[in-house]
């Protein structure tokens, strides 16, 4: 079989290349930025494999296909299966009830249960524990995937080679908006903190009517705090307000976050289609795989398998425009 060229070595491109290689296809992986790094928005992701939490405001597709992610990723990188804890302050309990009513596969936790799960959470009396959910370290996962690919003879080239490829899979994320008129950017801002005094073992989601926030432990006292969702394609700057809100919310989880060291400030945009669901779209000899929105690590494996089916077996799966329109 001839070569398939994959453009972009973010989470989408790496997963697509991995799925193609697994099917015995020769792959050329191209990314001008080289190895996975801050140019890819997946570099800034939370890395939560939380289909049930996401289902609160996402489509059935996200729930169903997102459940495969945990097993897929554990083949290539370390996946921590510690669940997700969702909490709200007393005044926002209506939000907690609503969250619970719109999803499944959790159990309610009282103050004592909370202390047992996360003794360092401060002042919460009720929560929802999604035991089956997991998380990973995005940067480690991207590096592990590129290492796996390199082991299979697929390095990341900064430029396409002279040989013509039969098909091109465009996984460039928001950079592909020149070719995809209905792609938009949804800005996200995040922080990485080192707070050695805080010990949290699983992703915590704090519900709040205006400032929802999650904290994902990265190990050794390092936490990722995310993330804003703003209808904007600005990927350059964090606003003082966003930073203030993120930090205030973290402070509310545990005042010891006030003493944390700010290690990183991240800003990027998530590529999204109008229904916030990913697409596999063929345009001539190019297949676009894009629009992972806030579900990069959750849906990239399913997206990659859909791409492989289309590229190799010419089978349209549910990420095709037609199939999505029929829903």
């Amino acid at each position, binding site marked *: 079989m001839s070569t398939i060229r994959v453009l972009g070595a973010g989470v989408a491109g790496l997963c697509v290349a991995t799925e193609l290689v697994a099917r015995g296809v020769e792959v050329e992986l191209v990314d001008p930025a080289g190895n996975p790094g801050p140019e890819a928005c997946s570099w800034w992701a939370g890395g939560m494999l939380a289909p049930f939490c996401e289902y609160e405001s996402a489509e059935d597709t996200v729930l169903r296909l997102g459940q495969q992610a945990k097993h897929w990723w554990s083949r290539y990188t370390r996946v921590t299966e510690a669940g997700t804890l969702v909490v709200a302050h007393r005044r926002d309990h209506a939000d907690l009830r609503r969250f619970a009513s719109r999803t499944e596969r959790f159990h309610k936790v009282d103050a004592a249960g909370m202390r047992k799960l996360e003794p360092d959470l401060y002042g919460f009396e009720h929560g929802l524990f999604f035991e089956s959910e997991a998380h990973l370290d995005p940067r480690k996962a991207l590096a592990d995937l590129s290492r796996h690919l390199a082991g299979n003879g697929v390095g990341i080239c900064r430029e396409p080679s002279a040989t013509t490829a039969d098909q091109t899979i465009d996984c460039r994320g928001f950079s592909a908006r020149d070719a995809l008129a209905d792609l938009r*950017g949804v800005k996200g801002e995040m922080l990485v903190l080192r707070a050695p005094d805080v010990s949290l073992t699983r992703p915590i989601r704090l519900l709040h009517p205006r400032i929802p926030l999650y904290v994902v432990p990265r190990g050794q006292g390092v936490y990722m705090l995310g993330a804003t969702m703003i209808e*904007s394609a600005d990927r350059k700057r964090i606003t003082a307000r966003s930073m203030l809100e993120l930090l205030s919310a973290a402070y509310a989880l545990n005042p010891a976050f006030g003493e944390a060291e700010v290690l990183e400030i991240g800003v990027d945009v998530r590529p999204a289609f109008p229904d916030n669901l990913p697409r596999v779209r063929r345009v001539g000899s190019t297949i676009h795989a894009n629009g992972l929105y806030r579900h990069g690590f959750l849906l990239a494996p399913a997206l990659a398998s859909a791409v492989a089916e289309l590229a190799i077996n010419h089978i349209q799966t549910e990420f095709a425009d037609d199939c999505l329109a029929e829903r």
Partner: protein
Amino acid sequence: MRPFYGTELPNGLMLGTAQYPSPAILQAAFRESGAAVATVSLRREGTGGAGQAFWQMIRDLGVHILPNTAGCHTVKEAVTTAHMAREVFGTPWIKLELIGHTDSLQPDVFQLVEAAKILSEEDFRVFPYTTDDLIVGERLLKAGCEVLMPWGAPIGSGLGLANPYALRSMRAEFPDTPLVVDAGIGLPSHAAAAMEMGFDAVLLNTAVAKAGDPVAMAKAMARAVEAGALAHAADPMEPRDMAEPSTPVIGKAFLS
């Protein structure tokens, strides 16, 4: 319905555009409800025109656009945001929102009057988000506003019409001014109640965007607004303390 700055609206439903699960659902909510007006915020998305994709989607809804100054706490911020809104959407309409309290999101009516005056003098058509205070309403009209938008209850609370007496007084006090209940609507029954009182429109966002099925809720709101408006126009009966039989009792067989 009284015209809004000379514009006749097809119905009294004004919908916000924030917090929907996706733009596709937002579009469907507008399509299915036939809402007449879309409010849109610029404050956060605004910087450097980076919100263009979303704004274009709002324009493509094909309804009247009412940009707002949501999130502004000072006159200066609000005026700057209004200028930006006029540039982005090419409309002199502006929903003037000046938050006075970060927790209750209660409007700061003093700054509101001041900003309304400045913007009216600059030929904006100001839709002020205000309390149900009659004197503030009076001052806003003097400042150049031709529409008033009193709150039903605090923003996002879904409590409905917290003080129906005050809203009725407002309707009676300003018989010629288009009035919109803005904020606090949680259910279609709240929207219908406002319209039954003779309000010209209701403006809501969270109740639809955060419903489990936003599109269905938008439809429900549209029907409630229509029912309330029809009921008001139909001159409803007066409530009374005693029963009043709808068929005469005299002449009925009584030996049974």
